[in-house]
């Protein structure tokens, strides 16, 4: 009796999970199959029908040629590399100071980072816009870079957790040998934070790559398009040609999805250790 009851609940567990997976995969599936259809084929076949061939790459080639997607990937890559280099530097520096020293204003500094998360950045954009303009960064790659490089509280919490696990003995031994505090940061703390840094690099790369708002608002210049703004322009010009748009969507989704399947363990780690605290 109890045996069959167990099986029934198991059945519903798996059924609900499979429905969940179906719902997740349905939209990308539709995009994938239609990205491989020629315009004639797209117009004459059902949008759920498989394409004649998965080797028809014409749409993808067209997207690269018409949409300027290559420069979009280039721009976003430049932004990511510069931003992350500085962001990691500043993040580890703040965490080193907050994690290793005690001083009067420490609670204030940490509090400032904490309170900043409550202020929705989207609401202050009206004022930020003026600042970026005055700095002469409007319509340059500098605009997104300065807006992204600041460390956020989640990053600092993540680093602080790691610093707490680095034994203070290491610092003290280095001090006995006469190392300066800067040397301790450079040759002990910074390298030992590498695992946290790796996780952050992945998470920040994904979030910068996916951001639409900042590039849209601060870099309207055609040549400064990033993948998101280029996709928006491409859709505007080619609206209705869904097979083309599907190909563009797919090309833009591909890098993060590939990254995700290789690095999902670190992504989960970063997401959870930042949020569950």
């Amino acid at each position, binding site marked *: 009796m109890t045996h069959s009851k167990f099986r029934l609940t198991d059945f519903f*567990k798996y059924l*609900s*999970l499979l429905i*969940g*997976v179906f719902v*997740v*995969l*349905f*939209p990308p599936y*539709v*995009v994938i199959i239609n990205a491989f259809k020629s315009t004639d084929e797209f117009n004459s076949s*059902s*949008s*759920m029908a498989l394409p004649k061939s998965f080797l028809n790459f014409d749409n993808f080639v067209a997207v690269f040629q018409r949409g300027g997607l290559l420069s979009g990937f280039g721009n976003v890559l430049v932004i990511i590399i510069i931003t992350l280099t500085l962001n990691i530097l*500043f993040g580890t*520096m*703040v965490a*080193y*100071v907050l994690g290793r*020293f005690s001083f009067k204003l420490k609670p204030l*500094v940490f509090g*400032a980072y904490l309170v*900043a998360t*409550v*202020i*929705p*950045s*989207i*609401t*202050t*954009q*009206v*004022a*930020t*816009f*003026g*600042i970026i303009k005055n700095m002469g960064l409007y319509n340059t790659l500098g605009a997104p870079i300065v807006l992204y490089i*600041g460390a956020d509280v989640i990053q600092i919490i993540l680093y602080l957790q790691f610093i707490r696990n680095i034994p203070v003995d290491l610092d003290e031994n280095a*001090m006995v040998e006469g*190392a*300066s505090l*800067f*040397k301790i*940061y450079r040759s002990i703390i910074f390298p030992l934070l590498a695992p946290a840094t790796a996780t952050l690099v992945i998470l920040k790369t*994904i979030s910068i790559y*996916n951001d*639409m708002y900042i590039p849209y608002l601060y870099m309207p210049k055609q040549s400064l398009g990033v993948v998101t703004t280029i*996709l928006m322009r491409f859709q505007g010009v080619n609206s209705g040609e*869904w097979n083309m*748009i*599907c190909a563009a*969507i797919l090309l833009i*989704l591909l890098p993060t999805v590939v990254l*995700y399947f290789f690095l*999902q363990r670190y992504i*989960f780690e970063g*997401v*959870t250790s930042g*949020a*569950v605290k």
Partner: protein
Amino acid sequence: MFGTLSYNKQKTIIIVSFLLIPLILLGTFTYYPALKLVYYSFTNWDGYSPEKPWVGLDNYKEVFSNPDIFKVFTHNFAYFVMGLIQNIVAIYFAVLLNSKLRGKNAFRIMLFLPYIMNGVAVAFMFGYVFDTTNGSLNLFLNSIGLTGLGQTSWLGTETLVNYSLASTGLWRFMGYNMVIYIASLQAIPRDIYEASKIDGASSLQTLWRITLPNMKTVIQLNLFLTVTGALEVFDLPFVLTKGGPAGASQTYVQRVVDTAFAFNNYGLASAMSIILLFFVVVVLLVQQLVLSRGGDK
């Protein structure tokens, strides 16, 4: 040279020099704009002229007396409803994937997948799914026999458009919430469960009396993010419907952005931003109050 200074001096130098640029960044791009925003909200600045005429509370009066502005918040309501459903589904899947189950890692990986996808690409993807004539959702509904539903204009019907858009948000962020809930479940000590099993608790009782109370803090955090997220929705309707049909899917933030950048009314837009900021803080305070009332943690 630096190394020859005393450690106390070094400490001061390190603290100042390491915090200088990060704090300047924080001030310049978070606190200074927030203060600027307060100032602009008392002016009727158009965004470009050098003078910013002071108008006192006029902008705030305008926001509160113009029903047209506040009506927009009702559009945000759909995102709140969907956000709640999203959390319930996420808790359900989290509890499921925390139990003994084959292939739970694979399920977790699949269900989290949408979160890492590009928001604009996702928006257009759903634009295609929701398309009335070519869209695969209607085609799918027709194919399983729901032909009545299969003619629906998901993004073209005023009463439906916000829920359609918000369901896209659910699709995208459910997995994120789920992963956080899984992590909080794994932090619950196993022996509590063993003890309750010995006491003969049913699985529903275990869920209600042990699992959910232990997840309280994380649930509350996620609910805060749900409420504020619902208040701050911008990109989905902006990309997909441009606020249409006939303004039915315009959200509050989109309205703020339009007021500032399309209608050059920075003063009014700033006042609207401050009011939104105020609501976010109120949500946070109410939650803190409830949290400390409920107070075992």
